[in-house]
């Protein structure tokens, strides 16, 4: 009897050991954002054995969508959960890289005591441009600056552009050069002629469509200040050479108190009153849809767009017209917001930070891993044509749409159809030539003036879109009212705090 029991126990022990030995690969859970993935089994079937063999790691992705973009990470971080080993993070929306890094939610990757990046991420460090790590530097819980996430190698420089419907423009005898020469303050004549022509059949046509909340950036040359989520601050850059200090020097000002803003709002008012702007663009919830709809149906003359390399081919094909982009500044500029636009952080609650780093290293250097995770399985989710370009299948659209920028080094991917075989090389070269803003590396830590921002941002919300779209009945009066209320709510304190931080940053550089 005892023998039998011993035998059974031994057998059970053996059985329990066998799978344990086969599974010596560490499983890590990864939170990815912005996807529409309903079936990842075909991908994981290929990916996990490869990863297990190569680095002794298997992955379990959690496919976040746009719908829960903020919520998954926010919930995990604010509750101190250990459910994710690697988490997507960025500097926009509520998923705030700087804030969470400072709170101690992420592992420091270049910690002098335990330098994960040097130990397990050598290849990654060699592959990614050095300036990306520079942009990923942020303050940790100990007050020291460090890298708390692997930045994505993507379109990391910003190009603010006027998006021009060249087909329509040429129909009325104008050229791209005319638009460029006239500039934002001189489009009246072109708009008038095109509007009259397009409305000859009794329909309604609005030549000028844009994103009201940010179009001011295109005119006044004010890049996003990372950390200023209320869009209250302006750093006016040097449009003729983005790497040089702007007309006011390296300082922040109240975005709405400048002469530049006043002139811009007055001009918008002129365009609005003349009927060049769709009133729906001035209404909060319909603004973006109206702008995108007009673009996609080619029902516009000039529009605003934050463009990227090679984008005119994509949009021309999609809209069935010839689209051209006029950049509003000298060169593509590198700022924190675009560099911190998509990153991967290792959770401070992870049990296996080394395994995570090994995986991130491979993801950013091994084309097989990156392509498999991003495009899916060749022959199922995409096919390669003779030029080596990827053509996506319905299977990818239906069950495996991954947000490319949200994963990692996009330059490892095969080009998509129409981009040309050498696309990635040109892409990397193009962004390699971009220039850093003088304040590059600076992130505004708004936590000290949160109370003021809460009040001031509410005031801004009540006026800004109306002013920026020209819908205000009286620009001067509205602007004055807004500025006065902002002052009462402590706007100056916000500006002063930001400038103090910037000064400290620049002197420490």
């Amino acid at each position, binding site marked *: 009897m005892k023998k039998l029991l011993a035998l059974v126990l031994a057998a059970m022990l053996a059985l329990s050991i066998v799978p344990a030995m086969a599974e010596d690969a560490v499983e890590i859970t990864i939170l990815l954002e*912005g996807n*529409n993935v*309903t079936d990842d089994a075909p991908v994981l079937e290929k990916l996990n054995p490869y990863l297990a063999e190569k680095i002794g790691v298997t992955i379990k992705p*959690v*496919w*976040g*969508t*746009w*719908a*829960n*973009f*903020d*919520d*998954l990470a926010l*919930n995990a971080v*604010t*509750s101190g*959960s250990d*459910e994710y080993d690697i988490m997507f993070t960025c500097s*926009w*929306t509520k998923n705030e890289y700087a804030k969470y890094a400072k709170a101690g939610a992420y592992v420091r990757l270049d910690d002098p005591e335990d330098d994960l990046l040097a130990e397990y991420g050598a290849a990654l460090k060699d592959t990614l441009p050095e300036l990306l790590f520079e942009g990923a530097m942020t303050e940790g819980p100990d007050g020291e600056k460090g890298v708390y996430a692997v930045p994505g190698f993507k*379109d990391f420089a*910003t190009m603010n552009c006027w998006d021009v419907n060249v087909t329509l423009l040429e129909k009325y005898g104008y050229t791209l050069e005319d638009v460029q020469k006239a500039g934002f303050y001189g489009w009246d004549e072109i708009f008038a002629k095109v509007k009259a022509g397009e409305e000859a059949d009794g329909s309604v046509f609005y030549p000028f469509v844009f*994103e009201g*909340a*940010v179009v001011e950036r295109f005119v006044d040359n004010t890049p*996003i200040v990372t950390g200023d989520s209320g869009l209250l601050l302006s750093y006016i850059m040097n449009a003729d050479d983005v790497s040089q200090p702007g007309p006011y020097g390296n300082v922040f000002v109240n975005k709405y108190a400048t002469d530049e803003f006043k002139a811009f709002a007055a001009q918008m008012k002129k365009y609005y009153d003349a009927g060049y702007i769709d009133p729906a663009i001035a209404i909060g919830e319909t603004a*973006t*849809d109206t702008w*995108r*709809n007009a*673009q*996609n*149906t080619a*029902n516009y003359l000039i529009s605003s*767009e*934050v*463009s*990227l390399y090679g*984008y005119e081919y*994509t*949009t021309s094909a*999609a809209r069935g017209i010839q689209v051209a982009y006029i950049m509003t500044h000298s060169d593509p500029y590198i700022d924190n*917001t675009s560099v911190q*636009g998509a990153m991967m952080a290792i959770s401070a609650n992870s049990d296996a930070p080394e395994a995570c780093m090994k995986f991130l290293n491979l993801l950013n250097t091994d084309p097989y891993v990156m392509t498999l995770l991003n495009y899916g399985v060749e022959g199922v989710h995409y096919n390669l044509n003779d030029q080596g370009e990827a053509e996506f299948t319905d299977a990818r*659209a*239906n069950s495996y*749409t991954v*947000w490319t*920028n949200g994963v990692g080094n996009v330059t490892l991917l095969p080009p998509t159809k129409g981009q040309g075989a050498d696309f990635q090389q040109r892409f990397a070269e193009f962004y390699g030539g971009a220039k850093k803003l003088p304040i590059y590396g600076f992130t505004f830590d708004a936590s000290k003036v949160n109370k003021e921002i809460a009040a001031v941002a509410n005031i801004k919300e009540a006026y800004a879109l109306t002013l920026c779209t020209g819908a205000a009945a009286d620009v001067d009066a509205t602007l004055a009212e807004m500025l006065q209320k902002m002052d009462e709510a402590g706007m100056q304190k916000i500006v002063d705090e930001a400038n103090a931080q910037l000064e400290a940053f620049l002197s420490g550089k």
Partner: protein
Amino acid sequence: MTALSHRKGHALRLNQVSAGTELIFHIILGLFAACCILPFIFVVIISFSAESSIKTIGYSFVPAQWSLEAYRQVFKLGDQLWLSYFNSFFITIVGTVVSVAICVLYAYPLFRKDFKLRGFFTFFSFFTMIFGGGLIPTYIVCKNLLGMSNNYAALIVPMLVNPFNIIIMRTFFQTSVPFDLIEAATIDGSGEYSTLTRVILPIVKPGIATVALLTALAYWNEWFLCLLYITDRHLYPLQYLLMEMQRNAEFISRNSSVMGAASAEAVRNLPNQTMRMAVVVFIVLPIACAYPFFQRYVVAGLTIGSVKG
């Protein structure tokens, strides 16, 4: 039954409002009902409109072009659609049954004047209607302590008790159950549970039906719990499927200034607006069909006299 038809046949206007007044009632109620159904008809029309029509002339009762594309897209969801339907039904049915049972059990002693702790327990539930710990502490308790994550419990348990329904139920007990009835039953030697199930419950059927209806609607409409606790698509209820589409679009639209060109691509990958309306139709129809079931009890007593006792 014979007595009823007798009354109907012979004393048609006995103790009823005059025909003229009733006509006015019909007009008022009819107009209001029309206002209520019109937006839904609008939704149905949009769901059969061509997307191009919306892009050019906006939302309209008379689209420039009709299309079945939205429904084709909904059916393309395939298994997910039917799975979500199942989840919605499962959550609604289980949630409603358990929730109503707890509600009736909790409300009944609160109506009993001879229950010493009546005041305490009334306040105990009412207080939570006003004060709560907020989203984050509740999330932490539910998820970390009670293990509500990627399971049906996470979609059912957090909504099980609703103090509002408890108070409504208590009021129904108060207004329709004479207290002598309980005393009589007690003297007959009936236990508390048997008094409740055999004597009391038949009387408060309209109240139970009402609370059940409100609970079922709340479960059917719920999506926020799914956003908080569920990442496994197999557990998505139908309403979340819709909210996901809605929120996907809203997110991209709100963040297009930072996402730049990437947002345009993301928008192209989204289901279009007509499809979202078609999903609304899929959500509303089953519950609208289930409604008459509850109505049998709620409207049962109308005009034909109470069936009490």
